Structure formats: C-alpha cells, structure tokens
C-alpha cells in the first residue's frame, strides 16, 4: 500500500520538475536533491578530514622531536602558538582536542553516514528522493554551519577547546583552569549543538525513508546490508545524540548561568567557587551514553558499505545475510548498555563496573560473527581486487586487530593499568581511524561512478591503498607498545620519563619517531587520493551504467543524475541483492529487478 501511494507521489514529482530548469543556487547550493546533498556532505567532510589530519601531523612532530624548533610548526601556527617553532603546551592540547572532535563527529559521523546514507538510501531502495528534501537540505546546512564554527575556534586569541574531545568538566567548565575553556569551549559547545540538530534531522529522515519509501517488492529482508547498517545507525543517532545535547546544555548552564550540575567543592587558581553538590561523573555518564553508540554510528555504515563491496567483488553472495542483519541489530542494541566501560577507574561503583564488563564483552560475539562471515564470503570467491575491494578487505583486517584489543580494554581488571594510556589510543584509532576510514574510502571508490558519473583512476587507487594501510598500521601498531609500557595519553612530552626511568623514555621516544614518520608518509599518501578524487571529478573517463556488474538498484539509474532518480516508473524488486554467481544463471550477477526465472528459488 505504501509503495503504491509513493508510486503516485513519485509520478507527480517527476511531472512537476520536468518543466523548469533548475537554477545554479537550487541545484548546487540549496539543493534538496539527496544526491547533491550527499556530495555536499562528502566535500565538507573531505575538507574537515584534511584539516584534522594536518592537526595530527603538527602534534606528532612535537611528540617525536619534543622541544625542537620546526619550520613546519611555525608555518602553520605562527609565533602565537609555536614561538620559535616549538609548540606551546596548551596548543598541543588544543590540537589534540580539535583533531579528535573533527575526526569523530565531522569526518566519521557527518562524512560517512551523511554522505552515504543520503546517496544510497533512496537509490538502493528505489525511492525518488528522501522523505523530506527540505529537512535533508537543512541537515546539511546545519552541518556546514557547525563545521564553520568549529574551525573558527582555531583562530581565536585564547585558542580552541583544550579539554580533550570528551571535554570532561570541571576542566572544560572553568576558563581559570585552561585558557581553551573560555571562548574556545563556548564555540565548541555551540558548534556541537548545531551538529547534533543536524544529525537528528538527518537521522529521522533516513529512518522515515527506509520504513516508508521502499519500492514495490523491496521487503526489509531484501534490503542491501548497507541500508540495514544506515538504518540502525540512524536509530542509534536518534536515541543517543539528544543525550549528548543535554550533557552539553548542562555544561553550558554551569559555564554561563552559575549552576552546579558538574561542579562541586572546587578551588581553581586560588579562587574558591561556591558550587556544591554537582558531579563530574554525571557528565561522563551522559557523554558516554552517546559516546559508545557513537563508535557504532561511525563503524556500522563502514561495515555496511564493505558488506556490499566485498560481496560484489567476490562475485559471491554475502555469507549469512540474516546473521549479518542480526549482528547489526545486536550490536546496535548492545551499544546502549556498555557505556560504563569508559568509566571503570573514574570512581564509579565497582559493582556497576562488573555489569558493564559483561555487556561489553557480549558485543564481541556479533562482531566475531561479522568477521567470520566476511572471511567466508571471500572463500572460493572470484575476487576482483578493485581499490574499493582492497579497502574493504583492509577494513576487515583492522576490524579484527582493533576488535581483539577491545577485549582487553573491556575487562575492568585489565583496564586499571592501561586505561588512558596509548594502548587505548591505539585501539580506537585502529577501529575508527582505520576501519571506519577504510570503509569511507571503499565507499568513495565504489560509488564514485554513481556520484560523479566518472571513473576514478584505479592504479592511483592501488598506490593510495598500499601507502595508507602500511602507513596507518605503521602508526598504530607500535602505539600499542607505547601504551603497554605505560605511557599516558595527552602528554605533551614523554621525556619526563627520563626523571625516573630512562630506558622507558628512550623506548617511547624511539617508537614516537617511528610513529611520526609513518604518520607523515600516510598523510602524504592521502595527497594521491585527493588528486585522484578531484582530477577524476573533472577529467576522469565517463562511467558506464553498472561498472562493477552489481545487483543493487542504484546501478539501474542513468549515469546522468536526474531529479527523481529513475526516468520512468520506479523499478520493482523481485529478489535479494546478493544473487552473484547463482548456479544456472548466464551472467555472474542478477539485478534485483530481474524476476525469478521459472522454477528458480529465492536464495
């Protein structure tokens, strides 16, 4: 019934848009077309990602060669923040904070989910557009605004927020404690508030579209895993981001209105504050109630994209389609009851800690199922190693590597001595900085023909992949060992170890140099991608309709983008999306719109 109603609506839509040419502003700037909005998200995220990567190179230079003057640092930070080419302590923390914030929220939440949910949900479901084009546009422009505010905080006199990307109060609440907690933190909070609104509007739109605008025959169990992943991601976002908003709002009240939600019994810089009865732990609970689902908001879309890419390029159905859906749902559900594992040593009741150990380790089960299903999908496949496929395989490898260290961190007893050390930094960078980013790259390489109607250069893609995986593993593998040696994170200079354990200091400095060199190599490798990306948009060879010989609906649309996606009636779906190399079929793929042949069984 819903599909029929939509059919009628779709016709009306296509009809009304036939008559007028769109102007530049409504086509490229305030566009309500999901494909353009997806591309806008991608462009903004790529820019933010480049900025955040550059910030990381700046502080990596300080970590590898502490106290040494660097022309590179003075070039970007000037005399204010790097007098004589040596990074200031406070700015080091500012760089770390903004690097984390941009990477987690702006690149991996806005960029990954924003780009691909927008691009693929209507196309893979057979819808003319998102449920609300206007809200979709609003979502992008709020994202843009919040990006601008976040970046602007880098240029103010007192510097950006400096309390770490988790902005734990009281440090983030008291400008007397660190200068970044003044205007910088205010901007951070405003930017994130707008970001959360953007994310909420976007997520609601995705959910409504997935539930209501599926074309005829597209049952929930015929949806590609990408859509399942985006759908659950959107649900997670809707349920968890408002909690972050409340956390941020209470923090704003503490900062601006003199309330005591997070503050109690504080004397800072010789000034005795009156605040009494608040609890910094309250903030941590609220923050991680978002913060942990956030990890899966970042990761699930990447896993969804890679499911599609691995299946297509193995020329095999994804192994255990229903188990994959089950694991996505299980991960989504469990992600809400594990947040306490970030707080084992914060003074939270140890019994509560035990409960969180249990729930957290449960998440390893659906994750393991996913990994084994990926590996079995590769088994006896006929792999076509496109750049997208390489990144998807890289994603599985890093998902394993980052996942197993999670087992150690989820164990409250073991967390005691490695909490907040570089082991944690290594763990979440392997999962988010590698897995999720690889998923994003895989998605860009795979759907570039759909986005821009052009092909990216494959050989440059290969170069990009191998530099990236070698560089990134080179950065984050040694980092585990820095952490196991006990190095706390967010330290400006590890030569303080010289005062009590010189061999440990030497080891950390050695590894830090190795890490920084790999980081610089990996960062330079991204230039190959940027070049390939922009060059191909303008000068890449024209794409064909279905370059990867894939089953899903987006490859039945014309190469040239049109408003409403399909020129005629909407396609009707007859089968699941993974009929690759089906015995008895002529080709090694059967599009979802092909009806079942006589006597053919649905998988």
């Amino acid at each position, binding site marked *: 019934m819903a599909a029929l109603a939509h059919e009628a609506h779709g016709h009306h839509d296509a009809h009304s848009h036939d008559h007028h040419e769109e102007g530049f502003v409504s086509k490229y700037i305030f566009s309500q077309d999901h494909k353009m909005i997806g591309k806008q998200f991608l462009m903004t995220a790529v820019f933010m990602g480049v900025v955040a990567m550059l910030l990381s190179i700046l502080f990596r230079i300080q970590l590898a060669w502490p106290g040494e003057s660097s022309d*590179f640092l003075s*070039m970007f930070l000037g005399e204010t923040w790097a007098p004589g080419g040596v990074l200031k*302590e406070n700015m080091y923390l500012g760089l770390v904070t903004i690097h984390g914030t941009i990477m987690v929220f702006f690149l991996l939440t806005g960029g990954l989910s924003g780009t691909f949910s927008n691009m693929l949900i209507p196309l893979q479901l057979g819808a003319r557009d998102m449920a609300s084009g206007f809200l979709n546009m609003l979502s992008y422009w709020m994202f843009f605004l919040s990006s601008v505010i976040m970046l602007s905080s880098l240029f103010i006199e007192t510097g950006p927020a400096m309390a770490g990307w988790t902005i734990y109060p009281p*440090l983030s609440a008291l400008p007397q404690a660190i200068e970044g907690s003044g205007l910088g933190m205010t901007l951070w909070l405003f930017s994130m508030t707008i970001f959360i609104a953007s994310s909420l509007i976007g997520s609601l739109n995705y959910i409504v579209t997935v539930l209501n605008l599926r074309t005829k025959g597209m049952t929930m169990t015929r949806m590609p895993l990408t859509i399942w992943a985006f759908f659950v991601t959107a649900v997670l976002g809707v349920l968890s981001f408002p909690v972050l908003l409340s956390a941020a709002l209470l923090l704003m009240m503490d900062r601006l209105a003199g309330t005591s939600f997070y*503050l*109690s*019994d*504080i*004397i800072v810089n010789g000034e005795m504050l009156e605040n009494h*009865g608040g609890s*910094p732990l309250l903030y941590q609970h609220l923050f991680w109630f978002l913060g942990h689902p956030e990890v899966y908001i970042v990761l699930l879309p990447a896993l969804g994209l890679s499911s599609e890419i691995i299946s297509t390029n*193995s020329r095999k*159905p994804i192994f255990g*389609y*229903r*188990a994959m859906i089950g694991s996505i749902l299980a991960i989504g559900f469990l992600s809400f009851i594990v947040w306490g594992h970030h707080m084992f*040593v914060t*003074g939270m009741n140890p019994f509560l*800690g035990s409960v969180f*150990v249990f729930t957290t380790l449960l998440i390893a089960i659906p994750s*393991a199922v996913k990994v*084994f299903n990926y*590996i*079995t999908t590769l088994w*006896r*496949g*006929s792999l*076509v190693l496109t750049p997208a496929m*390489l990144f998807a395989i890289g994603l599985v*490898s890093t998902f*394993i590597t980052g996942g*197993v*260290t999670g*087992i*150690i961190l989820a164990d*409250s007893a073991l967390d*005691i001595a490695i909490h*907040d050390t570089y082991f944690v930094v290594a763990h979440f960078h392997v999962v988010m900085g590698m897995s999720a980013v690889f998923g994003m790259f895989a998605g860009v390489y795979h759907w570039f023909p759909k986005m821009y109607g052009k092909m990216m*250069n*494959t050989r440059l893609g290969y170069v990009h992949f191998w530099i990236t*995986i*070698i560089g990134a593993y080179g950065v984050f593998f*040694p980092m*585990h*060992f820095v952490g196991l040696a*006990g*190095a*706390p994170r967010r330290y400006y200079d*590890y030569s*303080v170890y010289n*005062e*009590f*354990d010189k*061999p*440990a200091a030497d*080891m950390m400095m050695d590894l830090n140099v190795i890490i920084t060199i790999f980081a610089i190599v990996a960062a330079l490798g991204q230039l*190959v991608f940027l070049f390939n990306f922009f060059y191909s948009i303008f000068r890449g060879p024209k794409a064909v309709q279905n370059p990867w010989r894939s089953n899903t609906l987006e490859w039945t649309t014309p190469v040239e983008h049109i408003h409403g996606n399909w020129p005629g009636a909407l396609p009707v779906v007859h089968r699941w999306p*993974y009929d690759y*190399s*089906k015995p008895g079929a002529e080709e090694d793929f059967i599009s979802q719109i092909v009806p079942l042949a006589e006597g053919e069984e649905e998988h």
Partner: protein
Amino acid sequence: MSFKLVTLVVIVLGAVAIAQLVRLYEHSSKLRNRREEDIPNRDNKLNANMMLTFMILLFGGFIWLMSTYGFTGRGEAASEHGKTYDWLLDVNFLLIVIVFFITNFLLFFFSFKYVRKPGVKAYFYPHNNKLELIWTVVPAIVLAFIIILGLKTWNNITSDANKEAIRVELFSEQFKWTARYAGNDNKLGYFDYKLTTDKNQLALLTTATLDSAIRIMEVGSHDGTILGIKLLEEKLNNPKNIFIPKDRVKMEADLDRKTRLLRLLYQMKYRHNSNVDARAYDDVIEADTLHLMKNQDYEFNFRAKDVIHSAYFPHFRAQINAVPGLTTRFKFKPTISTSEMKQKMNNPDFNFVLMCNKICGGAHYKMKMIVVVDSPSSYKKWFKTKKTFKDEFLAVSAPAPAAEATADTLVVAVN
C-alpha cells in the same frame, strides 16, 4: 621563508608530475581500449601477491615489536595484586594474539588465493547454519571464560582493604600531588574545601583551622594576597575610590561570594565537634615524595582540588581518578622495594612513580610524584622525622595578627 617556498614548489611540482603521469596512463588505456572498471588479471594478481606480502610484513612487524618492546616498559609488577594482573593480561594476550593471527591469516590468504582466475566461477554459498552456530557459540564460551577470570580479579582488587592497612590520602591539584599519612591513630582527619588556606592546603577540619579560615574570609590573609570581606566593603563603599565598571562588578561579585561562603563557614563552626580535631592533628603531610613500606597493605583515598586528575601508578598496576567533590579509593600492597626494583630493572636511576593520567591542563605531563618503597625499619626512621599537622599548623598560625595591621598591609599590596 625559504622553507615555505621550497614546500610550495615541491607540492606544485608533485601535483604537476602526477597529473602528467595520469594523462600518460589515460592515453595508453585509451590506445589499448581498456576501461577503468575492467581490472586486468595482471593488476589483480599483483594486488593478490601484495596481500600475502603485506600479511607477512604485518606478522613480522608484530613479532619484531613484541620481541623488542613487548612487556618490558613497566617491568615486573611491584604490588601483590599486580602479579595476578600480569598473569591475567598474559592469558588474555595469548588468546587475542592467536585470534589475531588466525583470522588475519585467513583473510589475507583467501584474498590471495581466490583472486579471479579465467574460467573459474565463484561458489554460490549463501549460508550454513551449522557453521554460523559454531562461530557464535565458540566465541561465547571463550568470552565467558574471560569474563569469569576478569571479574574474579576485579572483585579482589576493588574490595575493601583490611583493618591493618595504613590509610594514606593523595591530594591532587594543578599540577602536583600531596600525600597525607593518617598518623598514629590510622584515621585520616576530616576536611572541607572551604577551609583551604595557605597554611592549610589540604583543608583539614579542626577548631583552629575553622577559626583561621573564618578570619581570612573576614579580614584577608597576612601577606595581603587575599582580600577579606571587611577590606572589600571598605574599598567599595569609599566614595573617594573610583573603579572602572568591570573591576567594580568583579569586586562586588567577589564580595557576594565571600559573604555567602562565610555564612557557610559559620554554620560549620557551630556544628563543629572539637573531639574530631585529633583525627586531623596527628596526620602527616608530605608534598615531595610518597613513602611506602614494603609488604604493607595500603588504603589510599584520592581527592582533587580543581579538576579531575587520575592517580596512575604504572609499576603497581593501580589507577583511579581523583574527582573534585568526591573521594575515591584504591588499595594495594607494594611487594618490591625501590632498591630491589633498581636491580631488577638494571637501572640505578630507576624510581617508582605516581603520574597524572587524566588531562588536567597545560602542564599535565609534568604532574607526578616519586614513590619510594622502603623496608619497614627505614620507613619508620623516616616517618619519625616528620612533623604532624598540629605542629606545622599551630606553629605558624600562633601569633594572631591584629586586624588593623593586616588591613594596612593589604592596602599597600593592592595599590
């Protein structure tokens, strides 16, 4: 300047070079009539071989890192529970390293082995319930094992300390640690942050510290660095004084705040029972190093003055956050003395340390305290040399200065 120029030139030249290469490549593709989406078998094969090579590099790198740097950084655990901790860490590591090797091997090996070969079709294999059941149940069993072992250790570590444990408080502020030993009664004195004064940095609660806090709130500190309510009022009410509005607003806010805090101090004073003074008076405060006895149980309390800090003892495998407004605790028993550890680490300059492990401001990385573990006899010798809080506090605050004199010095200081 020259650096910037060189960088720019290199970037521009690099981009031009890649552009030329890409154009060359495109022309040759066009000549050979090859499309981007058709991956030639040669490229496929090359990447497949790279997969295998990369796997060997990854495993080799891991083994090299493990043999060079693994488990060496912190040395042997120097506390009783630390030994269990290390054992548990080893067990977990063994498990995850096995999983890491097997799954990564399968992944890269399959990527290498099943790369497209002409004439070989992929095997249509959508699901197998038995296999899926196996890899759900086996991880579940392994995880149950991990959870049980982990929680057993966790409960032991976080359980209450026994009665004999010596009570020590670690007080944290930007950017230093201060230790407070419970003294002869093995009870830590009470505290309230409003009692913080120059002479009572840890805000201990006794009749004398209450009076002194009230006096300072009313008339200011001896050296004039803190303005009391009286002087603030005088300055604000004196028509001869002209302030810029910003300063006046700030002073008025300061006065209001101090008035309210003073009221709370008086309430505290009327409720105060002088019997508890003794608890605080025999405490010993030491800001320089933390001295511990070998094979002695300790129960630590943690407090924070300004922002969250984290008390991290890497060598004792202990950590807990210090949170403003909240007292947290951790217990451990050092089993290796500093001199023994120096030998074990083969480093005469080695020392145990307490570090801050929660971002707390610019100099976060410098916030640490050396920990010395001694034999009981030398510890006791050291402890005897220390003054109690009573001696320290009453000695310095004995001559109560006249209010007028204080006010005079204040005027000088302010002007």
